[in-house]
């Protein structure tokens, strides 16, 4: 069994409620932080822990916190990003549904560290029942003196509010989230100014992922240095992975980042192997935005090293032969899956979710979907593959927010590694409607277009 810091108590009966959570040692980190530490020393501990943002980008949390502006007389805010809409990702949902008080505990300590008195949880609108769970937990925490004015007699005031979104992936991007929190369309803002200087209501704001904020609890309890000893290199601590697709045991797993991808997929402690005894074809290891990898490049890097479930190893080889840990949304495809169709559904997703502000993203995502639709339905030409490649390159890096890149990368990686499957689709317009390319020798040696 690996080390568990977040989900260790998830199976204790009644842990969702305050009484059991407290009896199991909950809210200790708030006592320690408010009574024995000060905001600066908490930020120091978080820096020492090496914690990197769990929302996808992996930015060091302690460093992010130290950027927050502190102008005299202007309130600051912490916003918890619970928008969780990246296909393949459902870990924050699990954490909030089963351990709501763990999130609140992390939020109180983090609010104290940032000097924020009014903290918001921006939750995707579809998680309606989790909104109820969180609000109940907030009421319990308030009734027991962990929220409100003068917490533990220290004079610190903290209020937590849940804000429901209404169906828009783009609101997971932090500046779109801030716009949405202000009651507007989720159009990302041009940075700078960064939220740490001018965020919600033009006030200094830190936006962090649910899992990041929950991880503050073990960091305070055990100390940053101890936390940093878990994992490897710059991948410290534990990470929640939501595994789905064609595996025996889909679900949310907490891993320390030293296990190999092979162990994660095949061991009974985690995914339990490919469903129906089929063969592994490909995997999107970090949420739909990150590059898809064929089985050969997933289990081993291009240089033949074992690939591990951590930030560095998953990105080994760059985009030519690697991918990213991203949000931890681990999507497994078996031998029966069609790469063209999978790429089409993702392209449709990004077209649907583009906010429409930048033309490369607004138009490009639509074109990519149309071309993929053509290929999937047997009307594609070989030139279409190059056109797709051209479009994705023109989107990447040319937009206000990273959604453009997120839409471009899956298409690029599918062509990079599975070009012959696209060609097969185009050359066999009738056959491809009823059968699959399967595991036919794909992209080996690995094809890297210019």
């Amino acid at each position, binding site marked *: 069994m690996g080390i568990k810091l977040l989900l260790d108590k998830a199976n204790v009966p009644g842990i969702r409620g305050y009484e059991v959570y407290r009896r199991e040692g909950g809210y200790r980190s708030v006592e320690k932080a408010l009574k024995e530490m000060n905001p600066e020393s908490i930020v120091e501990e978080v820096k020492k822990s090496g914690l990197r943002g769990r929302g996808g980008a992996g930015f060091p949390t302690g460093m992010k916190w130290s950027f927050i502006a502190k102008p005299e007389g202007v*309130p600051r805010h912490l916003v918890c990003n619970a928008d*969780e*809409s*990246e*296909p*393949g*990702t*459902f870990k924050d*949902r699990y954490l909030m549904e089963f351990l709501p008080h763990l999130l609140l505990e992390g939020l109180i300590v983090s609010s104290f560290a940032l000097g924020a008195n*009014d903290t*918001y949880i921006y939750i*995707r*609108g*579809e*998680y*309606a*029942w989790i909104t109820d769970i969180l609000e109940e937990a907030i009421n319990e925490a308030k009734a027991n003196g962990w929220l409100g004015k003068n917490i533990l007699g220290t004079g610190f005031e903290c209020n937590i*509010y849940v*804000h*429901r*979104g*209404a*169906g*828009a*992936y783009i609101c997971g991007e932090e500046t779109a989230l801030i716009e*949405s*929190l*202000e*009651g*507007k*369309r*989720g159009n990302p803002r041009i940075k700078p100014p960064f939220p740490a200087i001018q965020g919600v*209501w033009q006030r200094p704001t830190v936006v962090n992922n649910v899992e990041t904020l929950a991880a503050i609890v073990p960091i305070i309890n055990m100390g940053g240095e101890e936390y940093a000893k878990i994992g490897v290199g710059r991948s410290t601590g534990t990470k929640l992975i*939501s*595994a*789905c*697709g*064609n595996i025996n045991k*889909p*679900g*949310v797993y907490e891993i320390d980042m030293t296990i190999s991808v092979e162990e994660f997929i095949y061991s009974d402690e985690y995914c339990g192997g490919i469903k129906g005894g089929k063969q592994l074809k490909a995997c*999107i290891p970090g949420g*739909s935005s990150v590059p898809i990898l064929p089985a050969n490049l997933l289990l081993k890097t291009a240089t033949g090293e074992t690939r591990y479930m951590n930030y560095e190893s998953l990105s080994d080889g760059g985009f030519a032969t690697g991918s990213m840990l991203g949000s931890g*949304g681990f*999507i497994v*495809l078996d031998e029966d*899956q069609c790469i063209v*169709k*999978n790429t089409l*559904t*993702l392209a*449709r*997703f990004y077209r*649907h*979710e583009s*906010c429409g502000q930048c033309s490369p993203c607004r138009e490009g995502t639509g074109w990519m979907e149309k071309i993929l639709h053509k290929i999937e339905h047997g009307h594609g030409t070989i030139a279409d593959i190059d056109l797709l490649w051209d479009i994705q390159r023109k989107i990447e890096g040319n937009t206000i927010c990273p959604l453009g890149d997120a839409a471009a990368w899956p298409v690029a990686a599918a062509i990079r590694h599975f070009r012959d499957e696209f060609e097969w689709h185009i050359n066999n317009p009738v056959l491809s409607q009823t059968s699959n390319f399967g595991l036919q020798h794909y992209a080996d040696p690995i094809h890297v277009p210019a």
Partner: protein
Amino acid sequence: MTYTFNETQMTELNRLVAHYPEGKQKSALLPALHLAQDSFDGWLPTELMDYVASLLHIEPIEVYEVASFYSMFNLKPVGKFIFEVCQTGPCMISGSDDIIAYIQQQLAIKPGETTQDGVFTLKLVECLGACGYAPMMQVGKIFREHLTKEKVDSIIAEYRATVTK
């Protein structure tokens, strides 16, 4: 038609508005629209959006532009129950195509349509964060997961029973 919140709905609106700083009541727009949509017929006619605008002291256009941006707000009449079936990658590789086809066949409607008796609307949606429990659909506040044809049958029967009673 004119709309007015009853006392309970008004209390809830005031609770939501109180979450935000003085003068930032526009921030309550998304929660307020959810409340409005749930309190009446499951969609947002112009008059209802105008009512929400008046409650939050903002211009109607500020409400329209927001309501049209977010996929959970319905700008057209819908059935009593909306089957929102996920069709994105992870659900697709777990068999959502078959489930979608089966629901269409059982309800005799296409995506975006409502059954003639006004009970069911079928909507295809993008990833709802249930990838490990695919295929799935959302009905009202809850997720129905691990869908099979049998399960779809019983879900349809379950909702139909609530209206024929």
